[in-house]
């Protein structure tokens, strides 16, 4: 029998047992549904994570820290003292810091455009005339980090200017509109050694939207690099941390060189990580969650395997006479076996298509609601990729065919005379 005819006959046999076919494929459908949603959630999660990364980082950027030997944070044995500034932790551990010499060394590496120390700076408070005082973090403004601008133009920020997240503008009584641009806010810094306070009046350059996508955060002010440096220097002056930094941002002059620069920095004796390295754990987390969901789906598929085997065995028994006739008329063993395998494949196809179709429908309808509940804004948690449907349906057809092997073998082995004897 030709392949096309076999497939057609297989489809017809299934149509003649509609209820049974449907019920058997529903079991697989449950698996397909779960796996489709798992893959969609995984894709959506990864998309969301990489959105976070790309809106908060620059791919040319490397985060460089002094090399930490394996044991530097090991509290189980004494650590040898190493010269140089270090951040002290309780229990006799410390983290080495970068010095000005280190920064100079990094700057000399080929293809490095810029080296910026990471200022671990926080303002004592920010306030405005007639308003309360609020705590705030400080960051140098980086044009590569995308954020939604509500008023003003962030662009070329000057030393006496500041970019406010909308949350701050609101509590400081500044409307989210152009009229707030140019208004003065006061940022107070305190020296860690003496406790001396200093006020920096800064003009509002722009207001950006506070977003959970943004790592800069809703409580971090952005100002010019020089201003942040000055504020930081003021706050640590006279302490051992003056002119020492927890790390530095090394900017490659081009995206293409980022990997080379990373290697060169590592070769120079530092730890270097790209933004993606830093966010790697996020992807890992998403993958684990997705894996668990897929596991549930696989369990459903495994259960349905027994359903398929059972259904196909019953089908072979029911159609003993038909099989006998086909074999008597000269149908080959292989073709008889194939007929039943195709039936199983149809069941797999039906279940896969049904399950993933319903998942697509349900997911598409649930997406706005999920985004709303988790306040993801315009991004969707469930992203359905066309390849995943093909893979799921194909995979389930394969599983179904494998489950159909035993019953189909039974059919192929039937003795036509015996089979025709059964009335």
């Amino acid at each position, binding site marked *: *029998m*030709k392949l*096309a*005819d076999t497939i057609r*006959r297989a489809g*017809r046999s299934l149509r*003649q047992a509609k209820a049974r076919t449907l019920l058997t494929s529903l079991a697989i459908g449950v698996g397909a549904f779960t796996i489709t949603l798992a893959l969609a959630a995984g894709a959506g999660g990864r998309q969301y994570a990489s959105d976070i990364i790309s809106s908060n980082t620059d791919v040319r950027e490397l985060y460089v820290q002094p090399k930490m030997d394996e044991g530097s944070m090991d509290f189980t044995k004494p650590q040898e003292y190493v010269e140089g500034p270090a951040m002290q932790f309780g229990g006799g551990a410390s983290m080495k810091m970068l010095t000005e010499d280190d920064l100079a060394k990094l700057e000399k590496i080929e293809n490095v455009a810029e080296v910026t120390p990471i200022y671990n700076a926080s303002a004592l408070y920010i306030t405005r005339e007639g308003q309360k005082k609020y705590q705030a973090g400080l960051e140098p403004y980086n044009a590569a980090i995308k954020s939604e601008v509500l008023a003003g133009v962030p662009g070329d920020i000057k030393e006496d200017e500041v970019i406010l997240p909308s949350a701050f503008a609101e509590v400081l009584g500044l409307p989210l509109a152009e009229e707030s641009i140019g208004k003065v806010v006061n940022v107070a810094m305190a020296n860690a050694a003496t406790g001396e306070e200093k006020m920096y009046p800064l003009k509002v350059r722009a207001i950006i939207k506070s977003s959970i996508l943004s790592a800069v955060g809703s409580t971090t002010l952005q100002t010019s690099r020089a201003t942040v440096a000055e504020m930081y220097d003021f706050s640590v002056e006279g302490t051992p941390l003056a002119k020492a930094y927890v790390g530095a941002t090394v900017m490659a002059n081009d995206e293409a060189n980022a990997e080379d620069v990373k290697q060169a920095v590592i070769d120079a004796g530092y730890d270097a990580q790209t933004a993606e390295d830093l966010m790697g754990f996020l992807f890992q987390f998403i993958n684990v969650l997705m894996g668990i969901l897929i596991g549930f789906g696989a369990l459903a598929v495994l259960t349905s395997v027994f359903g398929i085997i059972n259904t196909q065995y019953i089908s072979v028994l029911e159609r003993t*006479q*038909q099989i*006998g*006739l*086909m*074999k*008597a*008329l*000269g*149908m*080959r*063993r292989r*073709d008889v076996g194939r007929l039943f395998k195709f039936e199983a494949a149809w069941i797999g196809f039906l279940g896969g298509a049904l399950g993933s179709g319903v998942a697509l429908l349900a997911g598409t309808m649930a997406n706005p609601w999920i985004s709303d509940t988790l306040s993801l804004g315009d991004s969707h948690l469930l992203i359905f990729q066309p390849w995943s449907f093909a893979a799921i349906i194909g995979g389930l057809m394969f599983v179904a065919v494998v489950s159909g092997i035993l019953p189909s073998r039974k059919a192929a082995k039937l003795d*036509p*005379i015996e089979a*025709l004897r059964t*009335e």
Partner: protein
Amino acid sequence: MIEVKHITKTYGKKQNAFVALDDVSLTIPKGASVAILGKSGSGKSTLMHAMSGLDRPEKGEVIIDGQNILKLKQKAVDRFRAEKIGFIFQSFFVQGNESVYDNVSLPLEIARVSRGKRKARVDEALRAVELTDKTKSKARNLSGGQKQRLAIARAIANEPSIIFADEPTGNLDSVTGDKIEKLLFGYNKQKNVTLIIVTHDPELAAKCDMLVNIKDGKIESIEQADVKAAKVTRRVTKKVQ
């Protein structure tokens, strides 16, 4: 030509062993019509299965067109059946939940006849048994006689060179039975197809060129047409007297 040489078929083992065919030999010329006669349980169906390559007797040879089909590989026997043989089974084995068309198309599909050619052959076979108007009906909705005709259409669709018919008129009234007989003998004469009929019915047997009597798995007698003709005349003269 079909040559059956010293076939022995035993069912069961040891003390349960039952010899269904015991050293059976016969020769059937091409295009002949043959009746296999015998009581129920005498081994008629078993002989038919052996001659058609459905069954494999443990001893003997079945030589069809110079080839011993008992020596062929399973694949080759299947192909031989698909291409050369038409079957009409004792109980018709019509597939009730399929259409009349699909029933007749089955042996053609098995013989890998292309879709285009299939249509013409199915239509022709259905015309021959006068079932054209039922082409699209489900086979289960046919009457007994129509089912029997459908079984014949299925047997002749692939233009076989040998047709085996096991009790083709067994359950039919005499009018329908006559119709079926005419169909089979017509096909036998027109296309020079070898026709082998298993039957209880002496009247049907009398219409064949050759008559094989079986008793307890052994050949009791083989009558050829000329001898038979003499017998029939004798019987007729008896009646007249």
